[in-house]
């Protein structure tokens, strides 16, 4: 009983989001006014809109080119990031998990250390590097650091390390070289790890705020995550609808990858 109540509470923001996106502009402005400081009194939020309307959605989908541009920007940044994480991260993780070479522990410790540092700590140095390379204010400022991020490597190392040694030894005796062993044994068996890294990476970069804020001056490059915070009383309905729309891709990814995601969170033993 208590749990159900708590669960309902967890859903409350999402409910408010959906109901808000179906409100007329006037009603939304009235309900949100006190929060945004444009009106007096206490904020009131009805469970169901008084006058439900698809107005905000129509406005968003038919009359907000900025929304689509930023949606597209998000896709253009997130998909290369995730692809890069797999293409760079999987071989790196395989090497760290399965090969014994000089400096392996050092490299791995460095990875873990970098992973533990929050973005804010490395922001300035990242900015300097990107600026020197002339990459600030281009999408590469988001894609390159994202593709080379450490968390997916760490996550995949855990999965690759769990593959029994006998399997790679068998592959070696069956005539497979290191690359073939990686492709035929490592990748298929590490697939859950790779997929969970994909899901987590997607969620992280879809919701990223700091990186684009810090590295992208040109608003034409901004992703969807920066469209959403611009809430005012006038456009409240549209913003809420946009939030709901922005939820859809991660939701789909999540539904598709939930199984692997759970395995990934369990394997890494942490979640940021």
């Amino acid at each position, binding site marked *: 009983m208590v749990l159900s109540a708590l669960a309902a509470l967890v859903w409350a923001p999402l409910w408010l989001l959906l109901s808000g996106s179906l409100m007329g502009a006037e009603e939304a402005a009235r309900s949100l006014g006190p929060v945004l400081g444009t009106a007096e009194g206490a904020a009131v939020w009805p469970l169901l809109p008084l006058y439900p309307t698809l107005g905000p959605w129509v406005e968003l989908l038919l009359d907000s080119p900025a929304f689509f541009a930023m949606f597209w920007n998000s896709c253009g940044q997130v998909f290369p990031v995730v692809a890069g994480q797999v293409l760079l991260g999987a071989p790196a993780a395989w090497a760290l998990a399965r090969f014994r070479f000089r400096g392996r522990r050092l490299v791995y410790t460095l990875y873990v250390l970098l992973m533990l540092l929050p973005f804010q700590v490395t922001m300035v140095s990242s900015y300097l590097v990107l600026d020197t390379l002339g990459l600030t204010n281009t999408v590469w400022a988001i894609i390159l650091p994202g593709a080379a991020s450490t968390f997916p490597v760490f996550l995949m190392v855990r999965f690759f390390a769990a593959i*029994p040694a*006998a399997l790679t030894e068998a*592959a070696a*005796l*069956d*005539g497979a070289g290191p690359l073939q062993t990686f492709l035929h*044994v490592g990748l298929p*068996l590490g697939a859950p790890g790779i997929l969970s890294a994909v899901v987590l990476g997607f969620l992280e970069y879809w919701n990223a705020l700091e990186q684009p804020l810090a590295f992208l001056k040109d608003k034409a490059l901004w992703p969807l995550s920066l469209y959403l915070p611009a809430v005012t009383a006038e456009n409240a309905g549209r913003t809420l609808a946009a939030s709901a729309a922005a939820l859809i891709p991660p939701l789909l990814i999540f539904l598709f990858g939930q199984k692997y995601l759970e395995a990934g969170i369990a394997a890494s033993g942490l979640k940021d």
Partner: protein
Amino acid sequence: MKGAEYEMEQQAAVRLSAEGVHKWYPGGVHAVRDMTLAAEPGELMVFVGPSGCGKSTLLRMIAGLERVDGGVIRMGERVINRAPPKDRDIAMVFQNYALYPTMKVYDNIAFPLKMRRWKRPDIRERVAQVAERLDLTGLLDRRPGALSGGQRQRVALARAMVRSPRLFLMDEPLSNLDAKLRVKMRRAITALQRDLGTTTVYVTHDQTEAMTMGDRVAVMKDGVLQQADTPQRVYRRPANLFVAQFIGSPPMNLWAGEALPGGLCPPGQVLGLRPEHVVPGGDGPAVLQARIEGIECTGRESVVYLSAEGGLPITMTTDAAFPGRSGEHLPVSLQIGRACRFDRESGLLLPEPQAVDPSSV
């Protein structure tokens, strides 16, 4: 590129030899010490010993999975110490089978051929042939997870033999099977090996497996080779006290010379006598009065545990119909002519005394 001939035809069997091979593990563990032995072409050689004796380490060095820290391993004339595993033309069956879980049985068996860039139709033909031989034809579309232990075992064997390697290595391949299946697979493997004529090294800790399967048996302990010989020789003339105790079930009786009645064995020596060479009744100098401490009847034979004067323990195997009961006394005679004598200091087998007439004892 190699056309139909590939390696389909049986290659001539190869000799495998280790000369003064050493293996050290970090922390100063000397896992294999100065190992010198050879498996002759076409031979099934069994490495046997208690766990930690170095048998698996040596096998893994032959396979190229462990570095050789000293000495030389040869296949034929070729030194293979530094060759990567894939260039050794060796196939191995692992204890846990090591089948690729994401591949179907067909792809598991075909994998070594794919890695050797065989053409698709040739692969299909060869896999079908091997699957037929190992009774796997109906299972080719399954994944390893959907197979029983015995079936997985056969897939592992199929994957090993599919490309007719120069050498088979088997690392305790039967230890995950139940007892009945183990006996069946034991025969299947020896029959297969005999048919293929491929030199094979087989590792086990089970002395019954070693005795029944090996053309020759190499007994190891603490990384040191104790004896390498035919099962019969190892059984009849164990090279030292360790082999005497390790091979044979129930184990050989070992008595210090002092504990035996006068004249049977000089002091400083240990007398070893197999339980089947102790027989009930009889008279003469080698007859002892003993009390029955316990009897185990296997249905085929009885193992009788006795104690003679002075508490000397004696194990005797005899007919299943042995009528004695615990607590009874009976005379037993030792067939001293079949005994082995060991030096107590070194534990080594002493040469057979010349011209001992068994009828004189």
